[in-house]
């Protein structure tokens, strides 16, 4: 079944200017999100996950810039639009859920006001209808007695409730694409579980695509249809959740899986990936993972040439010289 694409990122390159020098933060990133699909973008801090979301939202900080590639949301290339046109896409077509629910709501305005404002902007309804709809959306995200919540200020709500309010706000604009930047990191595990199942349910209800940023592989396992693994601004592996989890090919992905504590096994060992994550200013020739990769010595190409994406099985792509060699 071919579903409609809501987000199609192709060959995205982005740079950050630091002290008058430009450093590449995203290198040839491509992936797509279909309706009713959750794509998880996984990687360590600094690998470019958040920058990717900011590129899509058009909210890169002033010193960042997309140099080439295209970001198509519902068939429109955002990189070709003016800032004001991109603004019209935000909220309406794509909504973003933030990592820190504690700081993502204006502390001096009531929940009701903030919801209403958003509804009036995107759904063009009057105040009364907006209030009614706000109650509906709060109910939808599982908030008990929404009427009284509307009159409260953010500080009167717990983290989980605030995240729900934020989700309600994003949903109320009926976006086709939901971007969630580690929405569960700041929540405790039980609330995390609730929020994840809420997102999963809403995805089906709204027939929206979700781009989910996380470094928590447990969350990935729970929610992802497709997984994109980033390392130092490059895509190293992409595939369906089953493919990536059951049969990780890239040494980095394999390392990530090993670094997750497994409570089911008797030996409780975490195997870390050796070495340090490279700094943005560091230049690494060849595969960016080669200084930390166990197989670099066996393969002379790793330090010389950047590996190309290779389809190892339908829908499962890996960028690694070793995998390529083994396949041949």
């Amino acid at each position, binding site marked *: 079944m071919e579903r409609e694409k809501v987000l199609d990122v192709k060959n995205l390159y982005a740079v950050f200017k630091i002290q008058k020098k430009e450093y590449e933060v995203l290198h040839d990133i491509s992936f797509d999100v279909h309706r009713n699909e959750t794509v998880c973008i996984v990687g360590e801090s600094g690998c470019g996950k958040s920058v990717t979301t900011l590129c899509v939202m058009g909210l890169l900080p002033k010193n960042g810039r997309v140099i080439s590639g295209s970001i198509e949301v519902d068939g429109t290339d955002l990189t070709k639009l003016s800032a004001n046109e991109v603004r*019209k*896409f*935000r*909220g309406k077509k794509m909504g973003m859920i*933030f990592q820190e629910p504690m700081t993502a*709501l*204006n502390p*001096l*305005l009531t929940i009701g006001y903030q919801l209403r404002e958003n509804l009036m902007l995107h759904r063009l309804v009057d105040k009364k209808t907006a209030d009614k709809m706000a109650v509906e959306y709060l109910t939808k995200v599982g908030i008990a007695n929404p009427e009284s919540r509307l009159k409260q200020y953010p500080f009167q709500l717990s983290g989980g409730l605030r995240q729900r309010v934020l989700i309600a706000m994003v949903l109320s*604009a009926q976006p086709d694409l939901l971007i969630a930047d580690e929405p569960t990191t700041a929540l405790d595990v039980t609330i995390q579980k609730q929020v994840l199942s809420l997102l999963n349910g809403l995805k089906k209800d709204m027939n929206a695509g979700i781009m989910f940023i996380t470094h928590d592989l447990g969350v990935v396992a729970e929610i992802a249809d497709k997984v994109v693994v980033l390392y130092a601004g490059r895509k190293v592996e992409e595939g369906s959740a089953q493919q990536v989890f059951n049969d990780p090919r890239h040494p980095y992905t394999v390392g990530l899986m090993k670094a997750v504590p497994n409570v089911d096994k008797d030996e409780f060992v975490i195997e870390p990936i050796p070495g340090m994550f490279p700094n943005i200013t560091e230049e690494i020739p060849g595969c960016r993972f080669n200084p930390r990769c166990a197989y670099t010595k066996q393969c002379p190409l790793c330090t010389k040439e950047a590996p190309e994406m290779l389809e190892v099985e339908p829908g499962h792509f890996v960028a690694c010289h070793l995998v390529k060699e083994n396949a041949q």
Partner: protein
Amino acid sequence: MKRESWIRTAFQKLFRNKLATVCFVILIIEFILIIFADKFAPIDPNLTNVADRLRPGFWDKMNPKYMPEHWLGTDELGRDVWSRLLHGGQVSLAVGFIATFIGLVFGTFFGLLAGYYKRLDNIIMRFMDVLFTFPGVLLALLIVAMLGVSTRNATIAISIWAIPSFARMIRGRVLQIKQEEYITAIQSLGATNFWIIAKHILINAMPTIIVIATMRIAGSILSIATLSFLGVGVPVPQAEWGGMISSAKTQMYKAPNLIIVPGIAIIITVICFNILGDKLRDILDPNLKD
């Protein structure tokens, strides 16, 4: 849970502080006296009476020259000091509030723009720096000299004088607020820049604005008194605190009370506003919260 607005919480906290409460009450009494000056001081403030010149006030009741209807005495032209004090206060307070308000509106406008748009920042703030380089009184004198002496022009001068300090403080606050995640969150929901500035940033800058405004009112009252004292503020014979002190200079040794009485009025008003502003800052400034 009961709905609580931050303004109400702020007032509750304010009244928990004794000094702030005292200042607040003093100012309220002063406002009532001054606003209803015609009731509390029915004598015409500009009525001269050479026969009753330089009458002493209530502190010298034994003096045969004391007249109970002039309980604060009379000045060198026989005008009732109490009446001039209240009616003069009308001018002082009006100028203080109006000038602060005008300065606040423009200062906030420039401050918001400079803080939010990096491109405008340098242009606006360098212009504010130019205004800042003039010593306040000198700038006001310059403006009055250009526009001519009148109460309105003095108000304009004091307003312009107030703009840069507002702009600078608010710009600083905006730079801080801009970094907050809720601003990014609102952006991500598709809000326009105008709406973000006009609603979300402004409301978060409000505590700062209230505090500076309170402090600034004191400054403006002092400024109009200074200008009147120098003879470029409120034109005679209109009563005004600074002007009262100025005209009493000649009688300084014969009747020092003519300087002391309006002087005390200025001091009380200014100190009360400053203390109130200071306490408000403690209450409203999120950076100083315990």
